[in-house]
């Protein structure tokens, strides 16, 4: 049941991304932080498997019973899609981390990984005091939810890739926050205080069966969302 609750929370987060309105948007001032050259990317808070959301459907109209049926159906979709990724040998969290590496390197930073045990799916509360030798800043990433989402049932609301994440750049020496922002790739509903990325129109699938019919294209669509989101993080620290 805990699994269901997590999924339900993910649904709520997706539908109500406006709740992030209170989250800070702190732009990075690279010219005043020229000493930041070596960034340690902390192991992101990110589920290894995506979720396949139907943001609105008939089940939601029938209270608890309808909700439980919905969650059960979603769990089935998630399981099938996870199996599809596994069969393709794709690990989205590894793809995302590599994409972040690539974009930071492209913007002139030296990048290292920093392993980190996570207890939740949010940004860290504290960072290593005094930093580590050779590390000027930590990049903390929390991917709240990602996968595919359809706004509703029917051909006019196809499944498209989505991702919501927060990112924070912290100076290693004193834990000062140098940049913080929210990334929303294909958000459902209004969003104000977040970088809002429109989905690639090449990846839309009228229903779940169509989505899973060509695993290669489904994976490509998901990877496109991961890469675009990572690139926007690179833009935020350019």
């Amino acid at each position, binding site marked *: 049941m805990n699994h269901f609750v997590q999924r339900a929370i993910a649904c709520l987060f997706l*539908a109500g991304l406006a709740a992030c309105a209170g989250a800070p948007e702190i*732009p990075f001032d690279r010219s005043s932080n020229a000493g930041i050259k070596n960034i340690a990317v902390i192991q992101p808070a990110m589920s290894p498997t995506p979720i396949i959301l139907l*943001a*609105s459907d008939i089940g939601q*109209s029938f209270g608890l019973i309808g909700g439980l049926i919905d969650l059960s159906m979603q769990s089935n979709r998630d399981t099938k899609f996870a199996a599809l990724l596994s069969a393709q040998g794709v690990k989205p969290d590894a793809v995302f981390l590599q994409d972040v590496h690539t974009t930071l390197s492209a913007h002139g930073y030296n990048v290292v990984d920093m392993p980190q045990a996570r207890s939740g799916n949010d940004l860290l509360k504290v960072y290593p005091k005094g930093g580590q030798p050779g590390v000027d800043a930590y990049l903390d990433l929390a991917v709240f939810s990602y996968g595919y989402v*359809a706004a509703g049932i029917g051909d006019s609301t196809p499944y*498209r890739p989505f991702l919501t994440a927060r990112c924070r750049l912290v100076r290693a020496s004193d834990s000062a926050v140098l940049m913080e922002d929210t990334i929303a790739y294909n958000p*459902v509903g209004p969003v104000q205080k977040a970088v809002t990325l*429109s989905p690639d*129109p090449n990846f839309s699938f009228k229903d779940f069966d169509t989505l899973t019919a060509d695993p290669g294209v489904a994976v490509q669509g998901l990877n496109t969302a991961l890469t675009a989101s990572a690139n926007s993080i690179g833009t935020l620290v350019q």
Partner: protein
Amino acid sequence: MTLRLLPRVFSLSAALLASACITPPPDVPPLLQITSANCAAVPDLSTVVPTVATIDGDDEKPAIVTLDATSRCLAGTTGKSLYAIFSIPDGGPYTINVSSVSLGSSILAPKAEMLDAQGAVLHELPTSSFLFRGTNLTSLYRSHAGERYLLVESDPANVGKPLQRVKENVQVNAVATGYVYVEIHTGTDVASTATWSHNGQISVSVVRDKPAK
């Protein structure tokens, strides 16, 4: 309908009305060419639009300027552009939010620079720093000492290019008949097309950090 259902219907109706009251932007056709023969080489600093600095967390007071065919223009090396120039209050540093507001089928292709008191360019905001935040194309910038003006102009290199975006949404409609109350959940997936243009609306907010406690 029983009385106990009324509060729910009222609250839901209020929420739906509130969402319905979000006025869509006017649909302004894109301006793709500047015909004026009197474009200046440098911006006119006497036409600055003042901005108001607010404290982080307070309601922002954006300065809003609409650029259209009657606006002042510059003749640069890459072509003509429409522009507006904003003054930055003393006492930074500030976080400056400069946005190009979508106007239906057109959206200003923005280019921005920070100028000193004499109008010399101190810093250019990269075009890539403009990212969509909601429906606005926004760059967030941390100001520095000596930066007195913000020049925002249309970018001739991007004017005329198409912009396609997809927006997904969900709606909840309430149906109440007698003792039956049902919320119908539906979704929409709408693709929109606009054109990067010389005209458009610019919104500039200047925000000072909260004082340290």
